[in-house]
């Protein structure tokens, strides 16, 4: 989507060649702009994935009703929290009285991985205003983060891609929550249509694009090994965070080493 010759996939950021203030990635990302066109392309690119995600929105709506939330409350949660896994866990924890601290802490812990994902967007987002950055980050979930990384890594310069792809996810997420909470279990399980595989498929596709030769191998093996080990030891989704941080630490140690 970019015609800028500077943004070349074959020359990824090589911080070792530059000083910290002006890293190579800064040069690579100068063409990043925030435009209506970026919102439109993000919206359209993510629309098919949003339809798949809606399968989960329906499931969440059903679960929320079973836990005693009204349709309006379930819709409100989808509209302002916009983080599927944590919402499903929250309504599973829901009881009377509501275990407020448990629900809020579980939400925070499950979503902590978004901090790492947001940090990974920094080389491109540093060219946007803070209003654009923080407005976009509200709409960031796993699926559109993956699509946005793919867009940027392949040389794209659409700074509004995350926002556009997030808006379509938000629309489908809220609408499908209302549908699920209203009609109940009539739709059936997402597994029946393979919808449960969409997130894994998005990430497999992204992994293919992020593969950058043998220098990628060590951090990926570290991330894979620690994540699988951590998934067996710790509850919830801590393994994503642990795997990501372990790989980054190894790279920090290996750097200049």
């Amino acid at each position, binding site marked *: 989507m970019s015609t800028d010759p500077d943004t070349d996939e074959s020359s990824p950021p090589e911080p070792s060649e530059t000083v910290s203030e002006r890293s190579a990635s800064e040069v690579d990302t100068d063409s990043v702009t925030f435009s209506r066109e970026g919102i439109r392309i993000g919206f359209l690119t993510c629309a098919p994935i949003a339809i798949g995600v809606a399968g989960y929105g329906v499931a969440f709506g059903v679960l929320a009703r079973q836990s005693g939330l009204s349709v309006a409350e379930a819709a409100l949660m989808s509209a302002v929290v916009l983080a599927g896994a944590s919402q499903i866990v929250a309504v599973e924890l829901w009881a009377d009285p509501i275990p407020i601290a448990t629900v809020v802490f579980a939400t925070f812990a499950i979503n902590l991985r978004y901090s790492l994902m947001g940090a990974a967007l920094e080389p491109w987002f540093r060219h946007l205003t803070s209003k654009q950055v923080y407005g976009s980050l509200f709409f960031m979930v796993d699926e559109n983060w993956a699509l946005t990384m793919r867009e940027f*890594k392949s040389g794209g310069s659409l700074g509004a891609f995350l926002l556009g792809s997030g808006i379509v996810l938000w629309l489908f997420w809220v609408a499908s929550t209302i549908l699920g909470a209203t009609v109940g279990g009539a739709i059936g399980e997402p597994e029946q249509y393979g919808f449960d595989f969409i997130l894994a498929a998005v990430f497999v596709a992204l992994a293919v694009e992020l593969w950058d030769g043998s220098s990628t191998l060590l951090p990926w093996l570290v991330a894979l090994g620690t994540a699988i080990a951590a998934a067996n030891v710790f509850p919830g989704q801590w393994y994503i965070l642990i795997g990501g941080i372990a790989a980054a630490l190894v790279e920090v140690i290996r750097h200049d080493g």
Partner: protein
Amino acid sequence: MMGEEFLSLEPIVVAVILAMAAATIVTKVGGLWLLSRFDVSDRVEAGLSVLPGAIVVALLGPELAKGGPAEWGAAAVVVLVMWRTENILLALVAGVIAVVAFRSIG
């Protein structure tokens, strides 16, 4: 009446939902906010540069490990289609069709 129950917004429930939203927004903006506040050394930047791939692999590994041959086969289909066509939509559609097909066999 049913309509009231559908549209009711209990203050305590709304408060918990807003607290969840606040916690989530902190996680979504927190990482990038910290990065923009502090100068990062090139050593740290090298670590950050491997984050995208590392997060993808860390999320994917346990997800696929808890699946079975149907999921592994479908993941291989996604890799193959992605590698040959570089078309993400095609790869996703092929993966979802493959997982449904492999599950019906298994």
